[in-house]
């Protein structure tokens, strides 16, 4: 009897409030804030060299974000005008709405001691970062476009404000970066809040069958897992040998 009730709940169409709460829960359990790299960052325990490796990897994950969205835009049904416009606005803002976001990332990278040329060189990203980038392309090209928005924008991009809100003061206060050097993080607190919220609006409006809602929830979980995997790998690949987990002061 209980199983029948659970299945009925699983297949029932959720209203926007319940669906939004379910999306937020899907992301929450796997938030990248829990990754050791993020925790070491927030605790001020990384070196500038560690942050340089982060920037060299992060460029290849976020650099093609407008490309990912471009594929989704092209495949989004013509009748979803608002959704198409939101995607187009996101692409514009990433690239030419103000300063190009990747230029600001390179500015931070240079302050960490690496070079623009190293940042742009794809040979300097880890295999895991390449996996995250490939997953983003695959989702953009192959998934239902509403599911793709759920994965890329709700599952990944909407996490950014909470991550950077935590990390940005630390960059100034504990690592000694200047305001200009950390502008990449400042701008994302505003722009990704807009982008993430637009993503929620698209998904809430257009995931209009129980099956589509469940697929959106699942891809949010997977997206959050992918980002957590990527962030965890940064710690394993670049930090752990110099800063073992036990020295983070975070172990239970």
């Amino acid at each position, binding site marked *: 009897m209980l199983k029948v009730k659970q299945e009925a709940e699983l297949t029932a169409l959720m209203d926007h409030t319940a669906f939004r709460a379910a999306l937020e829960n899907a992301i929450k359990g796997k938030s990248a804030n829990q990754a050791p790299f993020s925790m070491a960052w927030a605790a001020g325990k990384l070196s500038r060299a560690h942050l340089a490796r982060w920037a060299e990897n992060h460029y290849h994950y976020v650099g093609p974000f407008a490309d990912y969205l471009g594929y989704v835009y092209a495949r989004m049904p013509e009748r979803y005008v608002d959704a198409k416009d939101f995607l187009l606005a996101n692409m514009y*803002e990433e690239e030419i*709405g*103000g*300063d190009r976001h990747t230029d600001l990332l390179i500015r931070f990278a240079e302050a960490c001691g690496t070079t623009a040329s190293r940042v742009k060189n794809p040979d300097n990203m880890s295999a895991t970062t390449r996996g995250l980038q490939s997953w983003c392309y695959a989702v953009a090209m192959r998934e239902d476009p509403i599911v793709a928005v759920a994965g890329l924008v709700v599952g990944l991009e909407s996490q950014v404000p909470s991550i950077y809100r935590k990390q940005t003061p630390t960059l100034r206060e504990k690592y000694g970066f200047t*305001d*200009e050097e950390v*502008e990449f993080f*400042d*701008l994302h607190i*505003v*722009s990704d*809040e*807009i982008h993430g*919220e*637009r993503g929620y*609006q698209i998904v809430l409006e257009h995931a209009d069958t129980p099956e589509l809602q469940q697929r959106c929830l699942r891809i949010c979980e997977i997206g959050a897992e992918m980002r957590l995997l990527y962030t965890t790998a940064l710690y394993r690949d670049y930090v752990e040998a110099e800063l073992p987990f036990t020295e983070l002061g975070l172990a239970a």
Partner: protein
Amino acid sequence: MVRVLFHRDGAVHEGEVAAESNLVVRAGVKHFPYPHLRYGCGMGKCGKCASRVLSGGEHLPAPNWKEQKLLGERLELGFRLLCQIWLTHDIELQQDSAAPAVGGTA
């Protein structure tokens, strides 16, 4: 909730927003003060969201480096960049019809 009075083109638009809201973020997702608020880059560079604080400014944090760089002397006249501000208390704002020139002079 935070009560916002927004003056633009001779009209006053009133709305309530959750505490810690950013009005440019809200306008970006088509919530109040959309479509009345003019904004641009959302990153403190273009100055299009610059607005004068008529009341409630005492509750705002001090202008950040972007506001200081972009608004310059206009800070003395009560101007702030709305993309750089998260509201915690009631506020009354006025935005001029024309976007101010950027560069730190009144």
